[in-house]
């Protein structure tokens, strides 16, 4: 009994120890959680603190909030409140550099100050390549002081607190990646299983075929067996002629397909002399097509922009890039940039952009595909006669707000119920498209 008892005691002691360890683990866990929570909230509070400091900065003779509005509306496009150069110099510490009277004069009439022979102003003007600053003649003392007060408060560096909470987001971000990994592994496993099954079937087939092929064959290796069976098949006359015929048919089809492709430039995407990207300009920068293709709503030709249009932006943007330097070279040497033509109808056909974009109201992507997503322009449509005719059969004439078509539409609806298609307006007449 004593033994039994002692064993019981021992067991309960073990349970007790386990329980104790568990408690310690839980305790540490909660401490960890607590510390994470505390550090996050500290970071949060600190971040909030820093913003509240910024907005509550002392106003030195001007209204900071008013100054902020004025600065953002009038100066921010050319000046930063830090030392960073935008168009003009950064304004951090401006009040240490110049006295108030000079600043007021300058802001009211910068060209006047430069004209008065002020040495500092002239040096600055030269340093900034003679960029003229806008004159703000209407600004009185109050406005100027407010702006200066804002610049001062916004440019004084505020101790930025380390953000502890940021760490928490990282595991969630990698979630997508692991999911793909799981799928890949699963696919691999499935493929492995299929392979095993196939091998099994092969073995079974081998054993079955071995039964009637006789004992002689068993000495042959797998490769030799395969060779033998191929030879058997090749010796069969019907199989052989079937293969030859299939080959001839396929080749004829390919030849005809190829012949239909003669004169069709679909898919043509030549390399251009400058790596100009529509994806960047028309897609990301949202520049309208007509800014560069100026004729597209006005005339037959939509036109390719000349170098001066590129220079409207690239006089300032990315000047140092070697690709942009090619535009500069073209202008300096007075040689046009020789773009490679992509879309090109034969001389026998007449196509007019304005008729389609301006009158018909069609969008570029109806015919050119999604140019704003292309790095290199590619011809997406076939530009064959069938393509033109197809669309003229399907599309309606755009009679909206077009007095020119009013009577025609009336006459059409008198004799027919459906909407007026381009073909009803002579869109299939040979002479409309052929000279």
């Amino acid at each position, binding site marked *: 009994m004593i033994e039994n008892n002692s064993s019981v005691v021992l067991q309960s002691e073990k349970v007790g120890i386990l329980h104790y360890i568990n408690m310690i683990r839980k305790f540490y866990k909660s401490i960890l959680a607590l510390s994470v929570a505390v550090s996050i909230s500290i970071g949060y509070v600190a971040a909030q603190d820093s913003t509240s400091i910024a907005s509550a900065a002392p106003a030195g003779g001007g209204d900071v909030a008013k100054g902020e509005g004025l600065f953002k*509306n009038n100066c921010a496009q050319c000046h930063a409140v830090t030392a960073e150069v935008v168009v003009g110099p950064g304004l951090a510490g401006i009040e240490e550099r110049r006295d108030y009277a000079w600043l007021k004069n300058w802001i009211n009439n910068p060209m006047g100050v430069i004209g008065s022979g002020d040495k500092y102003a002239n040096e600055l003007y030269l340093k900034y390549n003679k960029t003229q600053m806008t004159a703000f003649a*209407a600004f009185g003392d109050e406005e100027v002081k407010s702006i200066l007060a804002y610049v001062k408060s916004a440019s004084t560096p505020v101790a930025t607190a380390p953000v502890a909470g940021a760490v928490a987001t990282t595991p969630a971000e990698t979630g997508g990646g692991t999911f793909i990994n799981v799928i890949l592994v699963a696919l691999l496993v499935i493929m492995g299983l299929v392979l095993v099954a196939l091998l099994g079937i092969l073995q079974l087939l081998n054993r079955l075929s071995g039964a009637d092929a006789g004992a002689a064959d068993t000495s042959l290796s797998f490769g030799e067996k395969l060779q033998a069976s191929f030879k058997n098949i090749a010796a069969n006359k019907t199989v052989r002629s079937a293969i030859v015929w299939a080959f001839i048919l396929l*080749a004829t089809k390919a*030849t005809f397909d190829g012949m239909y492709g003669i004169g069709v430039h679909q898919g*043509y995407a030549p390399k251009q002399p400058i790596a100009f990207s529509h994806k960047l300009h028309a897609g990301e*920068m949202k520049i309208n097509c*007509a*800014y560069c293709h100026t004729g597209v709503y006005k005339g037959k030709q939509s036109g390719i922009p000349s170098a001066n249009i590129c220079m409207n932006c690239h006089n300032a943007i990315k000047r140092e890039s070697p690709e942009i330097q090619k535009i500069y070279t073209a202008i300096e040497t007075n040689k046009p940039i020789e773009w490679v033509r992509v879309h090109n109808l034969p*001389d026998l056909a007449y196509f007019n952009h304005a008729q389609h974009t301006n009158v018909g109201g069609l969008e570029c992507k109806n015919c050119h595909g999604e140019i704003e997503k292309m790095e290199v322009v590619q011809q997406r449509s076939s530009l064959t006669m069938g393509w033109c005719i197809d669309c003229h059969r399907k599309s309606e004439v755009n009679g909206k707000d077009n007095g020119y078509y009013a009577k025609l539409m009336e006459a059409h609806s008198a004799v027919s119920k459906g909407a007026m298609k381009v073909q009803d307006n002579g869109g299939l007449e040979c002479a409309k498209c052929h000279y």
Partner: protein
Amino acid sequence: MKVSLKNISLALSIVTFSTVVLTSCSDNNSTGWEFAPNMYNSRAYEPLTQWRKNIINADGKDMRSPVAGTISRANYQTSFLQDDSTVVNDLMVYNLPKDSIAVAEVTLKNPIPWSDKAEEEGKVLYERNCLHCHGEKGAGDGAVGKVYKGVPNYASDAYKNMNDGHIFHVITYGKGRMWSHASQVNPEERWKIVHYVHRLQLGN
């Protein structure tokens, strides 16, 4: 069917022919086969296209610059029909030099009378030519404006009082960091844009 030398060579030639045709089409840098190449790269002068050196013009180009000092009349409409069916005549040929913005401010008035339609057309033109720098509401926050820097807000104090002549002159010759847009918008279009810029100067 007999597998003779003749048959084999026939099949082979078909195969090579078709592969040549096929591969010539799949190359992105080539137009593939053309039935009548002279129709695509023609001998006649075509706009935007030149295939061979021009032997008449000294620089070898088909294009020629206009004679210095000439103005293309086709782009200069000189009379405008008003809503009350009277006609305003205006000499649209713009001959003030670049540095005369002050003269433009006092002498020029928009010859196209304001109407909803004119402003609507101005809006379309603004969206094509100015929006990417000056922003949808004229606040200087277009996608390119952010990269280009220094684009003003039309509604701000220094710009909200710009008059007709000032804006017309800026589009024609540019000002400061903005370059001339005369090659993209003709005078009539410029005046329509002026109507819309006035709308944006009011802010929202």
